[in-house]
């Protein structure tokens, strides 16, 4: 790609990553959540691949993305198992004053970050999983070389 595309891509990657992280971390306060935020971050990776092409170490990066995909899904299931003292997927942290545990009353409020119980942690796990899975798919498609015809 040309120098203009490379410069603009390198400049835009940081705001896109930060916006994706913002969408993930404020998933319990504003519209968004783990899935759209992870997709935004994976779009930044796709833009980098389109602008700068592939490098020698991308096969190892694909394996690392695949590992993080598994870690995200396992963290989500583990957070579901945390609530097993009452039921599966019970929100045991909400309203108990510990981490993410401030109680919220019905009605409009300015939106406090330390609320939501297990929801922000699950959002983060799903965000990691979606980001890693979509980036690994993009890298796997781009790394594939066409086989010779018989």
């Amino acid at each position, binding site marked *: 790609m040309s120098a203009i595309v490379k410069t603009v891509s390198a400049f835009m990657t940081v705001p896109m990553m930060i916006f994706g992280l913002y969408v993930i971390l404020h998933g319990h306060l504003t*519209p968004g959540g783990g899935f*759209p935020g992870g997709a935004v971050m*994976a779009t930044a990776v796709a833009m980098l691949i*389109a602008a700068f092409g592939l490098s020698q170490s991308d096969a190892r990066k694909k394996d690392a993305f695949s590992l993080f995909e598994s870690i995200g899904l396992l963290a989500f299931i583990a957070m579901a198992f945390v609530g097993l003292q009452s039921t599966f997927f019970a929100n045991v942290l909400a309203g108990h004053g510990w981490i993410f545990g401030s109680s919220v009353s019905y009605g409009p409020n300015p939106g406090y970050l330390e609320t939501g119980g297990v929801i922000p942690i699950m959002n983060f796990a799903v965000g990691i999983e979606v980001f890693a899975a979509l980036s690994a798919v993009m890298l796997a*498609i781009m790394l594939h070389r066409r086989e010779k015809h018989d």
Partner: protein
Amino acid sequence: MIDAVHWMLSAGIIAAAVMALKGRDLLASVIYLSAMSLMLSLEFYLLQAPDVAIAEAAVGTGLSTAIYIAAIKKTERMEHEGT
């Protein structure tokens, strides 16, 4: 007023979908699909579903277009006649 916007967006979505099906240039079809996804996310936003609108804009407009274009780059741009 808002009804006119809804009708125009719906007509644009259907027109873009039909244009994506017509024609043999797959790259143009992918761009029409991306435009359809953008109008669909705007329609979701007007129907007061911002969560779905953000997901549609991120996945449909950004990422699936990139994956389709990568697949076209790996195969062929023009669709063959018949078969």
